[in-house]
């Protein structure tokens, strides 16, 4: 093997590593946005809100990434996010803050379990199944709040749970970003260094082969839907603790951002390849872009246009990049 083909093979491996492009992309936008706004974008005042939004979106994106790795999709995460926040705020005054957090996570997990049931047991396409639950639970969010919003009472605001789960500030930053970092570390280890992760990657890549090796494919798909539900509800709790109230539209359209964050982050929608670091960075890049548009007084509606364009370009780019790398190797 010549030295040239060796370096090409290394290049191929690097390009194929899912997070490579998002790391480059994030570095570029940090520099460009900072320079273009003369430092306002990178200022602490702006970063506080960008990191906060990245944290909750990122945690939701991590759950989405697990589902995408299993070659499924969960578009109900935005509604689960809303349910999580409302259950937490609505029940904290009666059952206490910690139990309210647990209850919110249980509700998220239960919705995820329902999604998983539809997909694995009733063989409904994941896109359609979670589109259904997206509407069901958004509807329930509106019905619960009846046009008003749930707010955190004084008792809740002074509780330890409120501080731990998103309400505490350190150096001016809310603690939810620490939760995101912790979860990236944990999930990265789970996906890439445990038997569970090995089987998850395997069934996403080729479910028939995984099954032939004794992997419980349906049970595992079910489990990732549950995890996605729990993570989305947890993100809702963190967001509710940060702003202190939630209404019926809490988390609306965030499901698309979560999916976009995964796609930008190098998770292939065809399954079997993902990056937890990438999904979190994808969430940061998206909120960074949103904030950049606001700073430049661009109408916020343009962000949705950009969101769609990013997804399409990322998908085409991903394919082209792999094709190019394969040709060169």
């Amino acid at each position, binding site marked *: *093997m010549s030295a040239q083909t060796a370096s090409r093979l290394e290049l191929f491996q690097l390009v*194929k590593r899912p997070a490579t492009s998002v790391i480059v992309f994030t570095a570029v936008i940090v520099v460009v946005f900072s320079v273009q706004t003369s430092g306002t974008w990178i200022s602490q005042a702006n970063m506080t809100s960008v990191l906060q939004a990245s944290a909750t979106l990122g945690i939701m994106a991590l759950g989405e990434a697990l589902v995408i790795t299993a070659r499924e999709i969960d578009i109900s995460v935005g509604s689960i996010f809303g349910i999580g926040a409302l259950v937490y705020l609505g029940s904290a005054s009666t059952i206490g803050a910690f139990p309210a957090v647990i209850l919110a996570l249980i509700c998220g997990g239960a919705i995820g379990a329902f999604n998983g049931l539809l997909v694995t047991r009733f063989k409904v396409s994941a896109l359609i199944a979670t589109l259904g639950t997206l509407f069901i639970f958004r509807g329930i969010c509106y019905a619960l709040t009846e046009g008003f919003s749930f707010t955190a009472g004084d008792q809740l605001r002074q509780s330890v749970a409120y501080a731990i789960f998103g309400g505490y500030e350190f150096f001016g930053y809310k603690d939810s970003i620490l939760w995101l970092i912790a979860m990236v570390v944990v999930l990265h*280890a789970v996906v890439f*260094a*445990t*038997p569970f992760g*090995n*089987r998850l*990657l*395997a069934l*996403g*890549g*080729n479910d*028939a*082969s*995984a*099954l*032939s*090796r*004794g*992997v*419980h494919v349906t049970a595992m798909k079910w489990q990732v839907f549950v995890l996605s539900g729990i993570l989305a509800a947890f993100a809702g709790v963190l967001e509710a603790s940060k702003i202190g109230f939630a209404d019926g539209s809490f988390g609306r359209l965030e499901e698309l951002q979560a999916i976009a964050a995964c796609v930008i982050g190098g998770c292939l929608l065809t399954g*079997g*390849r993902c990056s937890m670091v990438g999904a979190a960075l994808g969430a940061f890049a998206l909120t960074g872009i949103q904030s950049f548009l606001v700073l430049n007084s661009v109408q916020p509606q343009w962000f949705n246009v950009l969101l769609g364009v990013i997804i399409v370009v990322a998908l085409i780019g991903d394919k082209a990049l792999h094709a190019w790398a394969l040709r060169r*190797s």
Partner: protein
Amino acid sequence: MTTNGAPLVRMENIDLRFGRFEALKHVSVDFDAGELVGLVGDNGAGKTTLIRVLSGLYTPTNGRVFFDGKEITYFHPKLAIELGIETIQQAVGLCENLSIARNFYLGREPVRHVLGLPFLDFTKMRDDSRKVLHDFGLRANVGADDEVSLLSGGERQSIKIGRSVAFKNRVIIMDEPTNHLSVREREHVNHLALQLRDQGLLVIYITHDIFQVHKIADRIVILENGVKIADVKSGEMTSDELEQIIREGGRTGASQEVA
């Protein structure tokens, strides 16, 4: 024969229906340890279906399956693998997106416990799969960390066979193991099948090429339209006679049953 005198695998009156389609009809067949059985038949004869019952992928509609004298009531690939039944299939068995080392141990990954949590033992995974790569003569520049997507068909087949040899198994099922292989690779695979049999394993060798399997098998079982139409020792019939049975199989005994 196993210790208690029963055959290692006994399949009794197996029926398997997919909706209205009858893939297997009253198939009864025994397999003994230390035997190389050729399972032969045309495409769609039910060879692979029968094997998928043994490898836990399909649950029979009717009939009973015994392994080592015990009746099997729950069918899942996991259980088959735990019993020591290894299936080498053409289309499945390796996940292209994973490295050779990860594929090698898929489903039974070795772990090291760190703080009580199970983490993959990458060192063991790499070392064991590297040994197989070496034993099976894969290209020198193929490493245990390389993705399966980079490998040729023959190399993939070698890894599957190597994996089945590396673990303590009692039954090796080879489903069309030599398709798409070069002549030398094919001989290598057939030689391996004989070696495994000599070690006392049951080897079930599926093919539609009667001439190839007649040379190595102790016994030939022929399926046609989901029905067993022949079960003979290799010495009792020539490959030409067996081919004649396959050619006429659908129209003689079996066709009467269908009608």
